[in-house]
């Protein structure tokens, strides 16, 4: 992806005699990249708690936690894709499709309601992965086409968007959306478990190491014997599965398969991942950062709602500007790091 030339001379001189100050600077930039989102999140929460009485109430915090679960799960899958140096623009549509399929499937029992969206969205992800890894097509255009495809399937399933399927009242899916454990919604628990699993998979498993290797340098990874194609196919399938699951959970929460959801969600997911410190060039990223990024976006949205006089479209302006600032900072930090 990157067109910048890396200077072999500079790289080769790195390991030898480094001045102490340089190493400290490098550590600082690494720290800023890894925890910048978390610091920004804490600061924003602090300021919001002081400024708005309604912000730090348990109701508001609980609503925010539940409200951010769906984007969080989508962004989890997106993190894996972006760490391999790819991008998945189809998640917004597959998210909506997952919700509709779950609601439609709930009339045939819980198993269908959960497995159908996972199967269909996972299949879309698998096709994305095959086209990208085997046929070597550009990720953004393949997933852009998949976005159209998923939206088309959604329209075909819902009589051109005119039918909204309701989740069966007494099904397990409905309980999933309503019940809570220890005062925290089940949806939040599920998301937390998924993030722990995701973080373990990325940092501590062989698959995770392959993901980093493919994103760092595809040719080198291939020469090392890493299964490049298989890793890529796996991350896009994973992203499809995550989006489908998030859609199914969202249907459980709303008790219906809303057809107009998920438009622009891929942008929020990418923004969250990038704000979390993951590099879009691949090879570098954290699951924890993604979570901080999702929560930060959610808090910004909440603050804009609290102000009241501001329209909700300000949120888009703020997230877009935020994304630009973070990307500029990342590019700058990355360049500084390479120069040291």
């Amino acid at each position, binding site marked *: 992806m990157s067109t910048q030339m890396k200077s072999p001379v500079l790289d080769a001189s790195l390991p030898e005699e480094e001045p102490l100050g340089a190493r400290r600077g490098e550590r600082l930039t690494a720290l800023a990249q890894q925890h910048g989102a978390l610091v920004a999140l804490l600061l924003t929460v602090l300021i919001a708690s002081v400024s708005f009485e309604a912000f730090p109430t348990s109701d508001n915090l609980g609503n925010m936690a539940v409200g951010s679960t769906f984007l969080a799960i989508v962004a989890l899958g997106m993190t894996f894709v972006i760490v391999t140096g790819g991008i998945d623009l189809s998640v917004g549509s597959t998210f909506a499709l997952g919700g509709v399929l779950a609601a439609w499937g709930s009339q045939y029992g819980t198993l269908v309601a959960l497995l159908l969206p996972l199967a269909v969205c996972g299949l879309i992800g698998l096709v994305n992965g095959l086209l990208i890894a085997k046929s070597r097509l550009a990720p953004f255009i*393949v997933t852009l*086409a998949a976005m159209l495809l998923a939206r088309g399937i959604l329209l075909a399933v819902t009589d051109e968007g005119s039918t909204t399927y309701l989740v069966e009242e007494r099904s397990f899916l409905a309980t999933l959306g309503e019940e809570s454990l220890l005062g925290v919604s089940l949806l939040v628990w599920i998301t937390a478990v998924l993030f722990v699993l995701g973080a373990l998979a990325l940092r501590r498993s062989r698959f995770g190491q392959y993901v980093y290797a493919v994103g760092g340098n595809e040719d080198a990874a291939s020469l090392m014997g890493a299964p490049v194609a298989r890793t890529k196919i796996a991350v896009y399938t994973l992203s499809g599965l995550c989006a489908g699951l998030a859609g199914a959970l969202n249907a459980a929460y709303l008790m219906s398969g809303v057809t107009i959801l998920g438009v622009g969600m891929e942008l929020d997911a990418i923004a969250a991942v990038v704000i979390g410190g993951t590099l879009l060039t691949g090879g570098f990223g954290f699951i924890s950062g993604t979570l901080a990024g999702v929560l930060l976006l959610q808090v910004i949205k909440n603050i804009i709602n609290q102000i009241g006089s501001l329209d909700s479209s300000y949120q888009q302006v703020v997230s877009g500007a935020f994304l630009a600032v973070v990307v500029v900072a990342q590019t700058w930090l990355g360049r500084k790091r390479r120069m040291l």
Partner: protein
Amino acid sequence: MTQLALRGVPLDRARVLRLLQDYGVYAGVLALLLANVLLTPHFVSAENFRTQAVQVAPVIIVALGMALAIGSEGVDLSVGSVMALSTSLISLYLGYGPVAAILVAVLGGMLVGLANGSLIAFIGVQPIVATLALMVACRGLANVFLPQLKDVRDPTMASLGSGSVLGIPYLVLIAVALALLVAFTVKRTTFGRQLLAIGDSRPAAQLAGLPVRRVLVVVYVVSGALAAIAGVLATARLTASDPTSLGTLMELSAITAVVVGGTPLSGGRVRIGGTVAGAVLIQLLTATLIKHDLPPSWTQIAQAVVIVAAVYAARERGRR
């Protein structure tokens, strides 16, 4: 012997594939036209052709800018949002007269392009990400400026949207003029040459002393301006400003037109004629499906398949 061997060449796979990549889009347009003439009732009428041409004009204009961005080995995802921004600016500034409003709208698009280009050229952000950020922010800005749909009641705008010369709508004339202008720029000017050189290999262009950054900024400014013009024309045709929905998925249509038209995503080559034909092909395909009562869901699925097929067919060129 050599003669014989040479004669065998034209039929080999690579050659056929290259011909298909270069002229497949024109063949596709012809085939679709022929099929429609034979199978679709009421297809051959001046009214129908005029409707199709008016509908495709904004897509062509946006696709021209997209072709330049893709030719420089980038992409501009913000075009749809720039259209929305331009429509809301028109509404806001119509009080100062239509000419001022159009100028402000185009200037707004150029500013967005300047932001895109600066992020990409000076800071070194990937084009996908830079234009993605602007895409989100501009859609929001458009909605902040103009929260809901508003009628545009202005005689100049109305005549721009529905007027015509010798039976050809202004919209189509403007699109054709812009296409010729961009084609001339790419083929015959220094700027066009520099653009292609940068798209081919940015490090090489840099070493050759080309003004890489300036050219990249200009590419995105032009793309922003063209998208804004498309937004103005779409507003004039609809006689309303709808910042929420105008231009959604326009980036996809534009990229499709460019790619189907044979411009490789790897940069270094721009085909304006192919791009225009690509936009027409997608328009005809959609129209055909709609005229035969296929629902929009199937139109979208078909479009997705066409995109993947076109990129798949074009991929060999990248490796050549």
